[in-house]
């Protein structure tokens, strides 16, 4: 399988007041297309930072990150925004749905950035909500859904544009065991059935078991 994600000698550090805090030290990582990669590690090990860099929502201090043939480290902010809208589906720990929008409208959000007609957007939204099993809840607001359902809407939002990769940051971190199982099964299905490349950050060993490959980060280094 060709690599869809190539991380080459990536370093990242943050400034806290006048102190530079190194987070990632010369990370090199290759993720083949269709992979379900789990990233584990203790708090502060840099796993979310690596995920953010792969998703193009943060920029490295050094090295290169190539996703689907594009060196995203070299893109400008506006180019990155456009790139993210077509290539990345992001699943957050706390779902991050917009509370004023219904499930349907939340899933439709990333499609507003495309040139799809209203009718085509509807098809995409309905298909995405059907995949996550929430066709009957499309008119519900986030506050009317359970945590597990909210996360499924968030997954529907992430897959609505049919992105190249899915990145998930602790997708089961805020869920009970049963809901977590459902979400992990759904991610597995997206990987197997829909051939989605998934990079998932998790603390949970049970979640990591669902991944094909698990890499551990510790003190900014990949083990």
């Amino acid at each position: 399988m060709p690599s869809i994600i190539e991380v080459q000698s990536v370093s990242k550090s943050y400034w806290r007041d006048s102190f530079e805090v190194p987070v990632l030290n010369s990370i090199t990582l290759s993720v083949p297309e269709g992979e379900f990669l789990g990233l584990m590690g203790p708090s502060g090990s840099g796993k979310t930072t690596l995920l953010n860099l792969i998703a193009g929502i943060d920029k490295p201090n050094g090295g290169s990150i190539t996703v689907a043939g594009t060196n995203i480290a070299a893109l400008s902010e506006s180019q990155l925004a456009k790139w993210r809208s077509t290539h990345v589906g992001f699943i957050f720990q706390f779902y991050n749905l917009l509370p004023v929008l219904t499930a349907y409208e939340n899933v439709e959000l990333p499609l507003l950035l495309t040139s799809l007609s209203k009718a085509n957007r509807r098809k995409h939204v309905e298909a995405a909500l059907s995949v996550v099993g929430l066709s009957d809840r499309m008119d519900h607001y986030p506050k009317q859904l359970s945590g597990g359902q909210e996360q499924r809407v968030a997954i529907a939002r992430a897959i609505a544009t049919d992105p190249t990769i899915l990145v998930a940051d602790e997708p089961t971190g805020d869920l009970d065991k049963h809901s977590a199982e459902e979400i992990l099964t759904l991610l597995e299905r997206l990987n197997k059935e829909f051939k989605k490349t998934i990079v998932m950050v998790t603390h949970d060993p049970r979640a990591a078991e669902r991944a094909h490959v698990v890499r551990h980060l510790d003190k900014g280094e990949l083990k």
Partner: protein
Amino acid sequence: MKVLKLIWKNSMRHKLRTSLTIFGIAIAVIAFGFLRTVVTAWYAGVEASAANRLVTRNSVSFIFPLPYAYRDRIARIPGVETVSFANWFGGVYIDKNRFFARMAVDAGTILDAYPEFRVSPEQFDAFLKERNACIVGADLARQYGFKIGDIIPMDGDIYPGKWEFVVRAIYQPRDEKIDGTQFFFHWTYLNERMRAEMPGRAGEVGWYIIKIADPADAASISGQIDEMFVNSRAETKTETEAAFQQSFIQGTSLIINLFNFISFVIIGIIMLVLGNTMIMSARERTKEYAVLKTLGFSGQHIVGLIAGESMIISVLAGGLGLLLTYPVVGAFSLVVPKSWFPVFYIEPSTIVLAGTAALLVGIAAAFFPIQRALRTTIVDGLRFVG
């Protein structure tokens, strides 16, 4: 769903806060509109002045009269079309609180000089024919219930004695900018009484109103008139009607400037109220903006979301404020005696100014929240705990 819908839903997310902001701004817009209307009313006389009218008065002071004999000499100056004149009568109708402008005028020429006072030919004929007839403005007639044929008794003060006037005509102001509260009667009636009772005051005119053919000649004709009466017992000062009216309100210019200043301070208050709301709203949504950026929404989209929300609030508030300004100004003009502000209406420019101010404030109030939202990185935004 369109982005506009998201902007609208965001605006209405905190209904109480948005409503209070809208009402706060609306009240400020009403205050702005009201103050501007007061300022407009103050300058109504100046605004209604005709460019082709000059006023000649005694150079010492407006309260000193001019000889009636000047009339024909002024009329002979080339470029002068009509020479009319008037005396301030004063007087008391019932009591001193019932004040309105009462003037003795040259009956034959007054409507030539002031075509903005419209009287039917029949009524004007009736006015001309009767020695103690008077013309009252439509607003004044409405205020006191004057009808054609009514007798209006007055106690003279500047011109002592008991006076009685018969209403023979009611003039309609040409438009809302024209004072509809004036009272005119025959100068000959006044002059005859003076000749009989106070001969030393007969043949006196308060001021001349001179209608000229070409407003461009105003300066030259004014100069010729004043030149004509230099070294006479009553030297003259001739100026445009606008300058003449301006001289009456010059003493109050400080108060009016203060009104003007306060009206613009109100715009500042509107901006602070809306700015505060927008800063709070945008701060609460820091994480949501980060999520939108993660989904691929650009900085321009975020600018649109914040500015759109600010504009929605300012437009709703501005619209409500302007809508309510009409009944407020209307109620004020009903409560306050018409003679205080004979011309009291909301000028279109006030509406345009208030509307434009509300829109500009909407844009300005969004400035800081936009700046903050754009500066916040996605990573910091996602970590934000509001």
